[in-house]
């Protein structure tokens, strides 16, 4: 096999050096009674060429979103990714390195992560960012656990029902074995979190709200921040679509204590939901309570600038069971990917592309309303996602369209009661006017056939 370099002669010489006769004797450390008595029931090694054919076949059973017929976001977004991004990030010096434990030969990774942390903090309007979490959902779960470490005397957190339901499922799994309690805060008829509902809660460590929320709506960050201040709890803001902050003011600038979410939109392909990028920012005063790796600037013996992993006394390998988190490998290369992407965007690119997202979504929403769809939440600001109530009997049309490999929004009935025939749509800068017109045409055709 061409990944293993040993020749027969090599093996013989090495065995002699160890003082054993057969290759199987290298397993002398395993008692024979514990040896597996039968070989691996796997196929013969497959050639590179056969594997390519096989994987091409398998991958062609998927409908790629790049065909521009999937009008669905809900935490995974189709954005244009410039060719330079995957090109640069696939340099093997980046891909084949481990976590930078030896900083002198990892300055590429470390400076890249330091720059990522700077991008993340600036984008979200926060003091500091960590080197990444697994995804938006786990970032939120860890943010809530962090809040409970900061507010030691409390044992509850309040979370908005308008947070991505998949994120909430993850939070529930992380909370299940703990003694902490999750309080759900409902949303109102405008699709925004009903802030008044936290007035009567006490002893909460944090109030978590997503903006843009699961319905694509911008939350009232100013009022949420005020409510948190009144309650004396932390304001945790999460997100699944960071492109929105090319247009809308991020929660950090409204005084959020922790801002976290999914950074997949920043140059990372959808890839069936992962790998993505858990972004995690906090106020500087909470630095020592943060989970995950932190990269910091320092200098070498000669006074030259350099970067290292730092404040590691928080971490699992040193503090063991008292660590702020168990996270070890994170999403390093995805963080670097997003740094390359944000370098390409710059301030101007981010803003212009964010505007196209907003324009496209506003246009498509208007056109769908003209086709008989109704706005579920009127008068709320959106970015690139929105909820519409479809005309009666649309379920059948949705199904027919999906058979034609067109996804006409995400059906919301499985997430909330009273959302039958409600759909969450998404459209980004990656869609042309023609792509959107095709969707409208197809809907018309199916509705008239129905």
């Amino acid at each position, binding site marked *: 096999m061409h990944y*293993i370099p*040993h020749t027969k002669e090599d093996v013989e010489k090495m065995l002699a*050096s160890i003082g054993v006769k057969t290759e199987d004797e290298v397993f002398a*450390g395993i008692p024979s009674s514990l040896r597996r008595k039968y070989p*691996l*029931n796997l196929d*013969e090694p497959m050639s590179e060429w056969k*594997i390519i054919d096989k994987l091409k076949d398998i*991958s062609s*059973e*998927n*409908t790629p979103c790049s065909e521009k017929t999937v009008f669905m976001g809900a*935490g995974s977004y189709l954005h244009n990714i410039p060719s330079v991004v995957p090109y*640069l990030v696939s340099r*093997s010096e*980046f*891909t084949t390195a*481990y*976590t930078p434990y*030896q900083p002198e*030969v990892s300055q*590429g*990774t470390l*400076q*890249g*992560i330091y720059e990522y942390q*700077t991008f993340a903090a600036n984008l979200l309007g926060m003091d500091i960012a960590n080197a990444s979490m697994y995804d938006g*959902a786990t970032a939120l779960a860890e943010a809530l*656990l962090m809040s409970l470490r900061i507010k030691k005397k409390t044992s509850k957190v309040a979370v908005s029902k308008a947070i991505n339901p998949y994120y909430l499922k993850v939070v529930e*799994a992380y909370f*299940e074995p703990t003694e902490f309690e999750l309080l759900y805060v409902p949303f109102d008829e405008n699709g925004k979190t009903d802030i008044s509902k936290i007035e009567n809660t006490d002893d909460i460590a944090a109030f978590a709200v997503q903006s843009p929320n699961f319905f694509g709506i911008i939350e009232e960050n100013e009022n949420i921040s005020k409510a948190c201040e009144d309650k004396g709890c932390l304001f945790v803001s999460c997100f699944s679509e960071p492109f929105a902050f090319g*247009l809308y003011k*991020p929660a950090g*600038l409204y005084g959020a204590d922790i801002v976290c979410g999914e950074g997949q939109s920043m140059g990372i*392909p*959808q*890839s*069936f939901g*992962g*790998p993505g990028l858990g972004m995690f920012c906090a106020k500087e005063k909470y*630095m020592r309570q943060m989970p995950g790796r932190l990269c*910091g*600037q320092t200098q070498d*013996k000669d006074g030259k600038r350099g970067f*290292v992993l730092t*404040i590691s006394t928080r971490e699992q390998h040193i503090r063991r069971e008292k660590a702020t988190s*168990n*996270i070890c*490998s994170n999403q390093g*290369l995805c963080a*670097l990917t997003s740094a390359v992407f944000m370098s390409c965007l*710059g*301030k101007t*690119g*981010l803003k212009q592309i964010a505007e*196209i997202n907003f*324009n496209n979504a506003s246009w498509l929403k208007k056109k769908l309303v003209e086709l008989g769809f109704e706005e579920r939440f009127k008068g709320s*600001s959106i970015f690139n996602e929105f909820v519409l109530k479809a005309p009666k009997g649309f379920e059948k049309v949705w199904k027919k369209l999906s058979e034609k490999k067109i996804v006409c929004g995400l059906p919301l009935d499985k997430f909330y009661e009273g959302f039958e025939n409600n759909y969450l749509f998404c459209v980004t800068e990656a869609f*042309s*006017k023609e792509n959107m017109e095709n969707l409208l045409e197809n809907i018309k055709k199916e509705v008239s056939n129905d």
Partner: protein
Amino acid sequence: MINDKLTGLVLDEPLLWEKGSKGRIGISIPESEVEKAKPDTSLLWEGPDFPELSEVDVVRHFTRLSTWNFGVDTGMYPLGSCTMKYNPKLNEKTASMEGFISSHPLLPENMCQGSLKLMHELQELLCEITGLDAFTLQPAAGAQGELCGMLVFNAFHKKNGKRRKKIIIPDTAHGTNPASCALCGFEPVGLNSGSDGILHPDSVREIMDEDTAGIMITNPNTLGLFEENIKEIAEIVHEKGGLVYCDGANMNAIMGAVSMREIGVDVIHLNLHKTFSTPHGGGGPGAGPVGVVKRLEEFLPVPRVEKNGDKFVLNSDFPLSIGKLHAFHGNYGVLIKAYTYILSMGKELFDVSTKAVLNANYIKENLKDVFHLPYDRPCMHECVFTDENFEEYKVSTLDIAKRLLDFGFHPPTIYFPLVVHGAIMIEPTESESKEEIDKFIEVMKQIAKEAKENPDILHNAPANAKVKRLDETLAARKPKLKG
């Protein structure tokens, strides 16, 4: 004399914010084809402080940064426990096929049959390799796999009517284990290994009780030794109603040699970015699938991929499931790479383990006269030395590690496992040829000689890297985490 003057051209490169010029842009803006919409201006801002760079600026910047890194493609990377084996390029090719990278995680099943099929097949392959009955691919890294395993422990005991409080963790387990079990509300109970570096049934019998949820064993352990008594230990734990978790980060040593189920393991996590050759990316993304025996399958995260006739479906109908650990299906892109690797190797995965163990034993035998070997017994895929022989010259493990850099080798894992003072943990993996390993051995011997004759060379190492030794105390005392 071995050459330690290996430096090529190293260019300096400022931070992004110190470059660029107002008005530059590095991305092509799509045509604006619909009318402008009017946002609520009270919600807007002027935008973040991002540098303004051209595409060429960006390319030069990150290319230069990359040249300051050392990767497996640069040279031997014997970082113990991290399994820095060669990362096949074919894996990158398959994982970037359009049908995979452009796939939305919530697609209707008829539009993602390929993704589901690959997951289903990978689960079955991992079952065969470990001997366990069912796998979830959702955990995003090894440590999250551990958390998943602990949640399964918790759910199991809850179903049996009584939550248990403690978990036994040996001193030769991986560093993440105590944190993972604490995250799950368990109290870790320490267990010392014997003077031979492995665990003994009597010491487990002493502390295993009915308030202990189970044991978390790393096997082979972090000393590179196989836990010979694992089956007996598992029986003791099972008798008291507990479960056995195996940290399978070292599975690369025993593929085809040991069935985890037969030695009494109930739950295992695998690190696809170690054993199954996916690149580590300078700190992830990894993937930490978790395998369980049949009686624990109902607790695995949802949704689970199932085969229904000739169609693949997602099933979330498992009321006792621990729920979800990732918004979607985990680090799917990493799964494709591991699947590709398993197809490439097939039944020769056994040979992978054989050669990994052969390489480690060869290093152990050839360095044990020069470096102190605390446990002199047959090792598995890695061996652990110490700096004891150089104490009188005031040369430490750290100095030895830094000096290796000057010779073009990445250092081994240092100061871990904690049970060995000044540990130097070497894992060559099967990817290294005899010539490369001979060179490494020669360099290690040369460094040992230097340590005695001219220790300052070691104290001042590395001499040839982009930067000299960095002041980590300064970084922690005056943290500067953003530019």
